[in-house]
């Protein structure tokens, strides 16, 4: 996408212009772009490069840093906590992506088919509102909702004949609970993206398929989903990248990373190493790995999309 937009902007600039205009443009460009470039260097690019450099040092933030080359990365490779964090983060991200996409799509199709504007308004509002609340409020609220003694959620689950585990102290159930809470918090976002995508499917295609005798399922599989594939792809990239950086609910609900590190995510591990154990170099190595994995996953998603996504 970036290459394409750059190409269009270049083709726009047509014909030679006087050198004085060019010089005035350069001065104005300097003034208009200056603040953004300065902030970008200070808070994005500079720290990014410094972070890569830091990953080559052992540094406790008090004594002078000691150069150890790839020592941090070697240590990471045999660090069981790091592997727990990686595994949990991948499980969380995949589960989050799949549940968000499936439910977001199904809900969008359902709401799109509603005739009653009142019902449609109510469902849209109640789905989207949790997304507006801060993670801090959501995480604290759900800690109580799932409380084993007085939680509302526990009560209704028992009413349905399910006796729920003690979610946040049970290593098997702590991560699934956080997946569920995250779903409640952000499914409205996926839903809105999908609902917007649905509006882009041309009505005539459905009509034509109906005339050709396709039933509702066939129209869904052969018209709606292929036409929605750019939206589905965008939503999958956004959810995966967001989920990969999961931190707030984990730090708030399970401040130590959960029973048996069962909720330890990769960003949580970075936080523990950097801001609790004060290992700036080691934490920077973790950050570097996060970056590389995210870049690879995004590249993979774009590669898959080229084979699958329908673009006019």
């Amino acid at each position: 996408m970036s290459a394409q937009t750059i190409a269009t902007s270049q083709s726009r600039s047509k014909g030679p212009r006087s050198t004085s205009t060019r010089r005035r443009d350069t001065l104005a460009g300097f003034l208009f772009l200056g603040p953004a470039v300065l902030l970008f260097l200070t808070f994005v690019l500079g720290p990014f490069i410094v972070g890569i450099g830091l990953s080559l040092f052992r540094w406790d933030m008090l004594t002078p840093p000691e150069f150890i080359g790839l020592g941090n990365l070697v240590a990471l490779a045999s660090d069981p906590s790091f592997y727990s964090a990686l595994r949990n983060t991948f499980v969380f991200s995949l589960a989050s992506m799949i549940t968000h996409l499936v439910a977001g799509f199904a809900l969008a199709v359902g709401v799109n088919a509603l005739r009653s504007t009142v019902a449609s308004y109510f469902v849209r509002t109640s789905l989207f509102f949790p997304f507006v609340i801060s993670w801090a409020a959501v995480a604290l609220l759900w800690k109580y909702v799932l409380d084993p003694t007085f939680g509302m959620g526990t009560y209704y689950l028992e009413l349905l004949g399910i006796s729920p585990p003690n979610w946040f102290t049970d290593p098997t159930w702590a991560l699934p609970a956080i997946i569920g809470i995250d779903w409640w918090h952000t499914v409205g976002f996926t839903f809105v993206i999908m609902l917007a995508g649905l509006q882009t499917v041309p009505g005539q295609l459905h009509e034509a398929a109906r005339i050709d005798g396709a039933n509702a399922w066939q129209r869904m599989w052969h018209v709606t989903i292929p036409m929605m594939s750019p939206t589905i792809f965008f939503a999958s990239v956004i959810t995966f990248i967001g989920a990969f950086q999961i931190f707030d609910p984990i730090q708030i609900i399970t401040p130590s990373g959960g029973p048996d590190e069962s909720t330890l995510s990769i960003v949580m591990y970075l936080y523990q190493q950097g801001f609790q154990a004060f290992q700036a170099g080691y934490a920077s190595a973790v950050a570097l790995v996060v970056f590389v994995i995210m870049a690879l996953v995004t590249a993979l998603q774009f590669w898959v999309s080229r084979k699958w996504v329908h673009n006019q």
Partner: protein
Amino acid sequence: MSSSRLGRWILTVVLVVFGVVMLAPLVWLISESFTEETSAFYLPPSWIPRDFSAANFSAMAELIPFGRMAMNSIIVSVVATFGALLVSVMAAYAFSRLRFAFRDRIFALMLAALMVPMQMTIIPVFFLMRNLNLVDTLGSLILPALINVFAIFFFRQYFNSIPRELDEAATLDGAGHGWILFRMLVPLSSPAIAAMTILSFEATWNNYFGPLIFIRTEERMTLPLGLVTLQAGQSGSSVVVFAAITAVVVPALVVFLLFQRAFIASVATAGVRG
């Protein structure tokens, strides 16, 4: 015909029940937070306060400086949002309308940085803040939020869709770059401005990671960190924590209901265009 009507009726009921289930935890939250402490958290859950009382809110206000925290949240969100908007529209103007050396390379570099997660840079940024003596100040929350590469990209796309003939006409009338940007392009881009205002206000308002790293003193905390501090302090009972969560959630609900259309449009436009 009647079977499809039945199907639609079932669909409506299922979706409405689903919506009720989504909202149930919030109704429970508000109901319990207005309940007298001694009768709170009885089961089955009550959807209206059993024993109405606002005492939990005054108890909460004695444990944390809630008003101060709310004011900090407002200051940080407003300054960061408008600062970032100003920086972004100016940069987008330069990328969209001006010709100068390295323009497209700088743009490509910034776009590539969209891949860099904030956590990746937090440790160096922390040292920078420490050296600037900005740790434990609101400045540490505002400054990094001023650069929003996605907003720059988004506005540039929008500006590119506005005909350049308008600029040329304005230039012939003697308008400078500042006039063209702030009196012409920005007003013409109001849907994009609205979407970005909402998205970045929401992001700074709800930010928890930044305050967790940079802020130590309760008087300087924003609401999300204040909430968690209250809960972790164990000094307040659960119902007092509920009062604090309600005090954070209800204003958000009111603002959301007032601007719902704009909220949903912001996500949809940024999603579809991005």
